[in-house]
């Protein structure tokens, strides 16, 4: 066939169409078609600690999971609520410091500090972001970018919570297996939990506020309330990550407000596929280990990093997840025009 007179068409695979409806429940083949990707993700994540060659790389897995939480919360806010939030560092810092304070000043064990830091941190972050909730797009991004810098300067200037030295002598997890399976479990829980949330009626409200806030107002719904709820969910995830990181490093300090925590999740979302929720986790699974491998190159690693990002944006801007999903559900063929 002459290529000039042909075009590519994409058609859903038969099994994809058959497993769309309720009938999928009646056939093992269709059931396994539906569950295979989910099973792969869960099994893959759970076996990661065994596949890693040593303690160093096992620690990298924990860090991957914490970045995944941030990337998930970024993806949720940006693509399901319409708020571009650069506050990853802010959430990590809030969660980290609250967990550290609860552990050293009040003597609470990690079993209590992590859930408490999640909820208190989420509530505090939401409260601080409340005035800028009516802002949209880049304005909200700017304010959320400012908060971590602001918090770090306050701690430095007033020399509170250990000042520039940070809080030291924080309890660690009982062992590194517990540490890894806690963070992996949390990430898996949030991936499937958020997917469920955005498909529920309340998720529809979030999306509607993003699409068309005037119509939501005219429907008698308080949009600030729902924006605040979404920010609470997202910031709680960040604070949970922060609390975990504090107990992993047994230390919480100003570097938890570092901008890496705001920027890397966005890069991971670009690579993994925006708006897919699973994509950002895959993005983190690639980006964080790559960034570790490039550590030997010193400051040059930022250059490699930038090259990877630019390549993805130029050649696969849809992201890994969208690409893989398309291949899984559809096939392509040439047809005559």
């Amino acid at each position, binding site marked *: 066939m002459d290529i000039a007179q042909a075009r590519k068409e994409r058609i859903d695979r038969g099994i994809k169409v058959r497993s769309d409806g309720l009938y999928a429940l009646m056939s093992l083949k269709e059931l396994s078609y539906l569950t295979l990707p989910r099973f792969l993700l869960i099994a893959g994540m759970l076996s990661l600690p065994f596949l890693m060659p040593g303690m160093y790389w096992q620690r990298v897995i924990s860090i991957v999971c914490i970045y995944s939480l941030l990337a998930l919360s970024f993806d949720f806010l940006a693509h399901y609520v319409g708020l571009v939030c650069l506050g990853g560092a802010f959430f990590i810092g809030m969660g980290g410091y609250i967990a550290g304070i609860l552990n050293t000043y009040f003597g609470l064990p990690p079993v209590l500090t992590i859930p408490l830091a999640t909820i208190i941190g989420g509530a505090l972050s939401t409260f601080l972001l409340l005035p800028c909730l009516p802002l949209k797009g880049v304005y909200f991004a700017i304010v959320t970018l400012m908060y971590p810098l602001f918090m770090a300067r306050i701690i430095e200037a007033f020399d509170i919570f250990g000042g520039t030295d940070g809080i030291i002598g924080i309890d660690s997890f009982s062992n590194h297996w517990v540490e890894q399976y806690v963070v992996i479990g949390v990430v898996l829980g949030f991936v499937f939990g958020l997917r469920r949330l955005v498909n529920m009626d*309340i998720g529809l409200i979030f999306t*509607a506020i993003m699409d*068309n806030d005037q119509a939501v107002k*005219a*429907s*008698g*719904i308080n949009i600030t309330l729902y924006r605040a709820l979404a920010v609470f969910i997202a910031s709680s995830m960040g604070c949970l990550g922060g609390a975990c990181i504090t107990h992993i490093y047994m230390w919480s300090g100003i570097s938890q407000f570092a901008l890496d925590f705001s920027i890397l999740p966005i890069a991971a979302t670009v690579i993994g596929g925006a708006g897919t929720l699973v994509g950002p986790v895959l993005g983190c699974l690639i980006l964080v280990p790559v960034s570790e491998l490039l550590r030997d190159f010193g400051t040059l690693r930022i250059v490699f990093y930038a090259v990877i990002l630019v390549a993805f944006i130029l050649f696969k801007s849809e992201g890994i997840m969208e690409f893989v999903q398309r291949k899984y559900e559809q096939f392509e063929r040439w047809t005559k025009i």
Partner: protein
Amino acid sequence: MIEDPILKVVGLTKKFGGVTALSDVSFEVGEGEILGIIGPNGSGKTTIVNNITGFIKPSSGMIFFKGKNITGQKPHKIADMGVTRTFQVMRPYYSLPAYKNLVIPLFSPRARRTGGWRGGGRLGDRHTVSIDILEEIGFERDSYIPFKTTSTLPTGYLKRLELARCLSLKPEIIICDEVFSGLSMSEIASMVPLIERLQMDGITIVMIEHRLRELFRVANRIMVMNFGEKLIEGSPDEVMADAGVKEAYFGSEEVEEVMTYA
């Protein structure tokens, strides 16, 4: 004067910088009636709607709903009381299927509280309820139209979707901002009975309209606006007979001519 008006606007004035969009407009709407508001472009009709429903705050003047002052309230509070509106430029959720557009108003506190529409989902799936409402407003239940992505629907259906959003809130008042504009003659012809039915159900309707023939058929009273001021108010016949209206609204042309053209 109307006894116990459901909606009462007193001395409504709105200034945008140096431009006076509305100056000292007062009117009342009785329960269950249809009030038509007409006027040339830029005469402040939509500004009235935006002021009543709280999307913009009036510079001065008061708005009462059932004797309660609602001036300057937030839009969602006003919608929660039952004062609903459609938008002149339709505002559906284009990325969603048509029936999912109604899940959002059915999720609102008012829909859940009033218990209409099977409790706004409390006693039934919101998706089922929204298809019930869509059927009432003219989407064929058994066709694929309620399930199509909203961005693929023609204007007629989008206008109906605007009305459906108001209906799913179990409204007391619907303020229709040009629901007939942009529709074909046959689409308008099928909308008119719908408006009449809503009135029979006891819903008060304020209609802003350029399609005079259809408006004069359904409206009980007409108010004419010009340059942000109320020109005259009265029954359709009285309004048609007024010389000032002819001059302001119809220019030099003969009214009959415009009527046949409209």
